[in-house]
């Protein structure tokens, strides 16, 4: 049994909290980093992070990239999408193929 968590600002995560996710509210990047450090030690299966904080915590997140779980996934927060989710996929494609062959049309 694993939990699903979400890290983000209050506006973004409250809705998810109502739905039954473990919501972690943070107000700045430092706080988000602390929360992330704590939650990866627990048995979370998926951790959603709003893109604003994902961007700030990129270095930390790549450390956990090799683990099977938790899956740390960027989702747009209430302040809109920064396109990070898509650019992650793009980076993965670049890493795997050597060149970006899927998103080249943009």
């Amino acid at each position: 049994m694993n939990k699903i968590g979400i890290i983000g600002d209050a506006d973004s995560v409250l809705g998810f909290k109502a739905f039954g996710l473990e919501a972690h509210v943070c107000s700045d990047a430092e706080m988000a980093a602390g929360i992330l450090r704590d939650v990866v030690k627990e048995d979370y299966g998926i951790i959603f992070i709003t893109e604003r904080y994902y961007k700030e915590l990129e270095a930390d997140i790549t450390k956990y990239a090799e683990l099977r779980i938790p899956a740390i996934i960027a989702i747009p927060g209430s302040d809109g999408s920064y396109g990070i989710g898509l650019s992650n996929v793009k980076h993965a494609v670049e890493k795997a193929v050597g060149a970006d062959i899927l998103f080249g049309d943009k």
Partner: protein
Amino acid sequence: MARLNVKPTRMVLSKLKSQLKVAIKGHKLMKDKRDELMRIFLEEARAIKALREEIEPQLEKVYQSFAIARAEMNPEMLEESLMFPKNSVTLVATTKNVMSVDVPSFQFQHSSTETGSVYPYGFAMTSGALDQSIALLTALFPQLMKLAEMEKEAMLLADEIEKTRRRVNALEYVKIPAYQETIKYIKMKLAEDERGNQTRLMKVKDMMVAEQIELERARSAKMLEEYTSA
């Protein structure tokens, strides 16, 4: 090309030959693995892109109606309404094996405690926009889970592809040429030794024959001498 630092003997040659055979077989297998991983990965990446493009505007909508709810209700009320979520989401993460890469597979259970309703509050004091945003989120959630699963899988696959590609290249451009080069070197060295040996033998034989002839000549000269003096 770098030749391996080995002694040019027959033993080493036969060992290298079998190693080369293994390397070539391994290279072929790795290449197949890489191609198949690549196919799965690209399929996945395309699906993720489509799914993300579908989900993100939906989430936007959730946030929008949430913002409206926030505007319509006072913050304490809103906070209070959502303070005790009625349902909980549990996740069962199992492992799926894709081309010997362990990727997670998520099944989630959404257990609401009573009446099947997802709203953790009464309707009297809350805004309709809040209901709407939660309803949207509930509808969106399975897709979010799917996205999480696929993205994680894609990331892990990308890692594996990178590793496999390196191995393929190392075999193709370093290991196999080095083996071939070394085998060729040993073969030539052995052939050279063989030729050296051959000429040495011929030389020795010549010397022995010359010696024999010398003896023979000496003997016949002696006999001739004896004959003439007699």
